């Protein structure tokens, strides 16, 4: 594919608001995870909670979209000068020529959960939550469309934990076919009862901070995060989207294909679309959720496909598994790796699972990173792999 330039990006995660906060946490090996203080009912686990959402009310003209998820979207839009860059693109191309493609797993379901906790005796919602837009999954896309004053394509992708990786592919097609001249992509997912108690019911939640690829890993730590990227055909600065691959497992709703066939297809398709050999990949940000199955299967796929010189790690120990936002958070980590020459390690992990090849690293190291791959795999067997480069090839 013809590469696209990422001319602006932003992130807000448990490691703080803004790219510099996340980059510093990566350099310093500082986790954003903390003991669960989010749910009213007890749940012994660690979470990646974004500090300050509670104090970040939406401006009055956007109050109709008020909810935790849209607050986090607003916080992330305000980081790293992203909102200004997106508004400048809107002026440059026209509001109908900037597409908006965002990913989320649960969108603002937290608002629906709250309404059910506070139902009136007659069964109706409390008055402040009688806003249909926050009880439908496009809440996120519709909010950001309004917040940025965009008038083009506006869509919310929901393929669970691959959502905000797949938005890059979706937007690339829109640009390639001339339906838009630029695209705001990204994703936001916030902590809510559905995911905390839902993943707990599947016995996938770790009682301790997650330890991806550790032989004694005990499950995932759920996090919340939001992030955005601005894609253009060219621009003055920024990393490049070189390729992507998408596939399905055709295996199970909540467990990966045992041989990682879907993951493999997605990675190979990404390499194919970028016309790159595996040897060209310097750093891989793995899906690496710290669930038993994911890490075992993903480690094997990486060991089979890549040479020992390719560094690979999971950064879930810093941010937690941010579900529908994992794609954009880890794309931003890839941008940090490319921009700073930093190959993040795997935080909290002591002894690697024997399934891991020499690619998986525990320590964060300075390294030349010219090409970075980011893996995102979701429930329902939805896989997406993204390839980013520091420079345009050729």
């Amino acid at each position, binding site marked *: 594919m013809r590469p696209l330039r990422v001319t602006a990006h932003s992130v807000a995660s448990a490691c703080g608001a803004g790219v510099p906060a996340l980059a510093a946490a990566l350099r310093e090996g500082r986790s954003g995870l903390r003991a669960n203080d989010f*749910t009213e*009912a007890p*749940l012994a686990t660690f979470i990646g909670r974004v500090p300050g959402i509670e104090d970040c009310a939406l401006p009055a003209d956007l109050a109709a979209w008020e909810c935790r998820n849209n607050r986090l979207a607003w916080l992330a839009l305000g980081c790293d000068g992203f909102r200004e860059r997106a508004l400048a693109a809107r002026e440059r191309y026209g509001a*109908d020529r900037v597409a908006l493609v965002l990913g989320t*797993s649960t969108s603002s*379901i937290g608002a*629906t*959960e709250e*309404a*059910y*906790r506070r139902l009136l005796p007659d*069964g*109706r*919602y409390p008055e402040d*939550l009688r806003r*249909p*837009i926050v*009880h*439908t*999954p*496009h809440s996120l*896309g*519709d909010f950001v*469309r309004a917040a940025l004053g965009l*008038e*083009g*394509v*506006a*869509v*919310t*992708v*929901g*393929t*669970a934990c691959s959502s905000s990786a797949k938005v890059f592919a*979706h937007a690339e*097609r829109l640009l*390639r*076919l*001339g*339906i838009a001249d630029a695209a705001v992509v990204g994703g936001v997912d916030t902590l809510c*009862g*559905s995911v905390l*108690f*839902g*993943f*707990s*019911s*599947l016995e996938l939640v770790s009682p301790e901070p997650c330890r991806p690829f550790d032989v004694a890993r005990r499950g995932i730590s759920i996090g919340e995060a939001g992030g955005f990227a601005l894609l253009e055909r060219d621009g003055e600065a920024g990393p490049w989207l070189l390729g992507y691959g998408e*596939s*399905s*497992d*055709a*295996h199970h*709703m*909540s467990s990966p294909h045992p041989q990682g*066939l879907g993951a493999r297809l997605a990675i190979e398709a990404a390499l194919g679309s970028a016309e790159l050999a595996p040897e060209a990949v310097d750093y891989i940000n793995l899906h690496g959720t710290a669930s038993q199955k994911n890490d075992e299967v993903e480690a094997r796929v990486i060991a089979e496909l890549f040479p020992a010189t390719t560094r690979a790690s999971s950064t879930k120990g810093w941010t937690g598994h941010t579900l529908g936002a994992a794609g954009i958070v880890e794309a931003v980590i890839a941008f940090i790796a490319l921009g700073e020459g930093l190959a993040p390690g795997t935080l909290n992990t002591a002894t690697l699972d024997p399934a891991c090849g020499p690619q998986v690293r525990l320590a964060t190291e300075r390294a030349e990173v010219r090409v970075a791959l980011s893996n995102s795999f979701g*429930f*329902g*067997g*939805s896989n997406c792999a993204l390839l980013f480069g520091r420079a345009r090839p050729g």
Partner: protein
Amino acid sequence: MTTHTIHVAGISLWAPRLPGWDVAAPVLRGEAAMPEPQVARPAPTLLAPTERRRAPDTVAIALEVAARACESAGVEPREVASVFATTHGDLAINDYMSETLARTPALVSPIRFHNSVLNAAAGYWSIGTGSMQPYTALTAWEDTFGEGLLEAMTQAEAGGRPTLLVAYDIEARGPLSTVVTSHGVLGMGVVLAPATGPGTLARVRWRTARGTERTAPLARNLAAVADNAMAGCMPFCEAVAMRQPRIIRVGLSPSLLLEMEFDFPVSP
């Protein structure tokens, strides 16, 4: 704006009063009376009988129209990429999850939780057909059908291969139904192909255009879709059924339209 061309290779529709394209097409053309509803939801043969009974409404409707659209197009289900579009996802499971979380959060059902994701129907389709082709699942509130169609059209054109769109919504339940309006079960499937083939049903020339004037379903067909959130798929279905050149517009966002010019160069 650039004009693109795509072909309708196969189509399906299911609503309680229009259970399948063969029943629906003459009704949509105004040649047959609207039948009374027989069953509330379809029984997709892709699922084993026990799974069929247990499947959520979203999965039942989506799998039924997906399989019928592929059948109509004569394509192998496991070989097509797919786009699943739903305005609200599984409203019944959202009601269950929210109610359970409010009372007894530790008792949330793991199966209902993993079926609560927006891509549950897409996941079951991939598992049921053995398809490792990419699928996506998306939503855009009142413009969900238009955004789903646009993504399927761009995938078919960019990928140079047939792409399946599945669009569906179900009925709102419980307290959620006081803020979300959607009644009954409605689904449509369409296979879009970059090239014309022996069974091509229609040629569609399409472009995006600024504006707000969406084509409304024909009044005589409104009873079929009650006020299901996916009723926006009806003008597209009517255009294919009526086989007369016409232009329809569906929404992509509050100020952008997908404008489609239908013509029928091949007789059936």
